[in-house]
């Protein structure tokens, strides 16, 4: 493999986007794929390669350290280096995630991290066993906390899995989260690779409002091999 960054679908214009995602404090929401949380691993490679520490808040029980080992091998780095730079905490209830979100700025200072991945947000708040009002209250508190992160220099990538059917609460949670996001994207996977479609842009920076970032934009054709190939029901326009 000749590629240094094992997130190959994000090359070309999409790479600019990735650069934006990872260099500017803000809340970036990535959703729309049934397994968005799993795909979050691909976003770890770039900051890890730069030697940064990443906090991983796992509310989807999706974190897989073996993926980091594979990335490290692909980039010819010692796996221990990558493994030591990701700090993870798992949450199994929305209240645990809420608590974790509150504790994150302090943890980020302690571990000198600027980047935070949150997997399974807001999905974990959509809990059938919980009164909707309680879930909404906890979620709103978390959102208030999250909004303060960029001021503290944090970049958060928030991954939300798209279930086959969305409950009314789920729809509300996602809407609220995207409303507060700096930017929101749809993650799509095609046999050719991963691509991002802009869901909305609050600050139009690229001048390409609503534009699709697709594998067609990629620079290196060999790059796609590292992305899990799995047929997606529909390909984005322009692919």
């Amino acid at each position, binding site marked *: 493999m000749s590629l240094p960054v094992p997130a190959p679908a994000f090359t070309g214009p999409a790479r600019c986007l990735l650069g934006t995602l990872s260099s500017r404090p803000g809340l970036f929401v990535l959703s729309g794929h049934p397994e968005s949380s799993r795909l979050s691993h691909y976003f770890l490679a770039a900051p890890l390669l730069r030697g940064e520490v990443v906090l991983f808040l796992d509310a989807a029980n999706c974190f897989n*350290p073996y993926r980091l080992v594979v990335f490290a091998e692909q980039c010819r780095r010692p796996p221990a280096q990558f493994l*030591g*730079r990701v*700090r993870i*905490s798992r*949450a*199994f209830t929305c209240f645990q995630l809420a608590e974790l979100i509150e504790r994150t700025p302090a*943890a980020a200072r302690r571990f000198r991290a600027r980047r935070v991945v949150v997997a399974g947000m807001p999905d974990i708040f959509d809990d059938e066993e919980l009164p909707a009002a309680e879930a909404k209250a*906890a979620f709103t508190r978390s959102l208030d906390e999250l909004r303060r992160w960029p001021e503290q220099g944090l970049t958060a990538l928030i991954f939300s899995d798209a279930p*086959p059917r969305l409950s009314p609460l789920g729809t509300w949670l996602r809407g609220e989260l995207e409303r507060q996001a700096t930017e929101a994207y749809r993650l799509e996977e095609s046999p050719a690779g991963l691509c991002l479609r802009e869901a909305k842009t609050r600050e139009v920076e690229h001048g390409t409002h609503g534009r699709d970032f697709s594998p067609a934009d990629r620079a290196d054709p060999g790059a796609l091999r590292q992305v899990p190939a799995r047929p997606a029901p529909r390909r984005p326009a322009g692919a």
Partner: protein
Amino acid sequence: MRVETWLLDLYPSPEGMVLWTIEAAGRRRRLVDTDFTPCFYVGGPLDKIAQLTPRLAAEFPVRLDWVERQDLWSGVWQTVLEVGVRRPVQFAAVARWVHRQAPRAELFNCDISLPALYAYEKGVFPLARCALEVDEADRVRALRVEDDPWATQYELPPLTVMEWRLEGESITPQHGHRGGLEVCVEDRVEVLTEDDPRELLAALARRLRQDDPDILLTDWGDSFLLPRLLQAAERLDCPLPLNRDPACAAHHKRARSYFSYGRIVFKDSSTTLFGRLHIDRKNSFAVGETNLEGLFELSRLTKLPLQYMARTSTGTGITSMQLDLACRQHILIPWQKREPEEFKTARQLLLTDRGGLVFKPILGFHENVGELDFASMFPSIMARFNVSPETVNCRCGCPARVPEIGYGICRRRRGLVPQTVAPIIEKRARYKQLMHEAREESERRRYDDRQNALKWLLVTCFGYLGYKNARFGRIEAHEAINAFGREKLLVAKEVSERAGFRLLHAIVDSLWVEKPGATRQDYEELARAIEAATDLPVALEGVYKYIVFLPSRQNAAVSVPNRYFGVFAGSNRIKVRGLEVRRHDAPPLVARMQEEVLRLFAEAHDANSYRQKLAEAAEVLARFEERLRAGKVSWEELIIRKRLTQAPGDYQKASLVAVAAQALEACGVQLRPGEAIEYVITQADAALPTERARPFTLLNGFSSYDREKYLELLRQAFEPFRLYFAHSPGLSS
């Protein structure tokens, strides 16, 4: 007036807690206890909370008090506001009000159900013997419990049980297929076949009044029988006195599907009663596994009402016991489970996030093999090594004690979980002893059901499955237990090998070892040696005359854990894992063939006699094949039962289960992900998908089954028996 009674059921009402009691003479009574002020606690900045109190007192009839309570995590005593709610039915509303007014305040003990809070406070439990002081208005003036939940020999009230079930099939009538309604009290069975629903309702009402059962035990009562009957009763204006309490209507909760740890779970609807207990055998894990006797034991220990315990998991049961203990020790129970995992590096995660240890089996036929099991390994670890959410990496910084992962465990405080688990382990051991001493079969069965119920309590006090809802679960505690478990199994392996035994297979808490010429005594001694080295109880499950470790279904060269069959010396008991006979989804025909074959093999005692039996076994297979070819097999024997992983319409491929589910849905049957359906393979390779399989309830005279497919299933299921004797005489491949 003083009455000696048993407590049957309890629930809140605007008047107070309603207690249904049974007296020895048979009288059933509805009593009300007004002396119950459930409390929750408010913590946080005291001045802020103090500001709240006048408004709270103005809004609700409450009793407010500053009290000292212990923090669960640190063990430190702190001052909190105790809010006693004088009208128990307002308990949740008052807590919600406080939460709205002071969203940053911490609430404790506020989401425990009222019956549970009442039981914890009064020390009472379902089916407990009590002495009550009662006034003329049936109000409880005093309550004394004259019973002990930890007793192993207790007297139960004289309960009348009435059973309702539909004639014939045991599959859900929601999917079609119904017969007459069987009503049974003791040995009297009556089949109600009235076509006119009015007559049927009248007959049922008559039976209910006549026998006045304490327990209505049904098959499919929750999702089908009771809701349909109640609907009909309302439509036709024919009263059906299901409830004893005239002030309440039956309570219906709808069915739902939800995701839990990557698996879709289906929870059926439920219909519960007041003053009488409705228990649906088909919707009760506890009754399904341990019968009514086990349910009674669970309710007594967990203090959860019988109808609730019947429908909940044993994990909820053990949580209730922990809550009870916390209440008694004045430990605050955080309202929402918030304590997350401490940040760890991915490298640490690789080290700590591992399950139990497995040594894959040495495949093939082995003689004279001993199986040694750590008895309730995980609970024993919790009890023995004080593993509990608040003791692992405790805040007082006690030194590292957990092998491999180096977590600390508190030396100052005994954890809530070990305190809960230890007496259950002990009680289960006493039941097992009583079971062995029992003279009569009914007695033996009773103790077996009870010990089995306790086993389930113990099993679920560990593990990810219960994790989300486990109030006292914490991932570091889970990891610590696994780490102890791995170390202990490793030690067991070393001790065995030092004593000259060869390890054939080991999985988490069991190991299979062999040594030529070893006697039962030798295996017993090995168990004692492992016990001494690990500090955990170890039991000899038995010595196998022979055991066959089987490979993966897909590849005969690949060793997989927990797939074997074997026969114990002495008892000739067969133990099987991973074969169709143990699987719920296999057609009964296939399971029956394996059962018959295994019965034959139970008589074999070594490889030679096994080989001889193999020819007879092949005849059994041939007989099943012949019946299948001749079309003499009943539909029931061909049923395949599968769980839906998604809604019928969401299946992309026309798999057998998808075809069957879609056919049911087309007939108006509502199916949810996680629900099980039954079907028969009609023509697996049919070009038209709808012809591949039929739901069991939609079979009709025109359908025929796929003989080739079922023949293939039979042969596949026979394969494990001949695998290591492929060239034996009398066997064709």
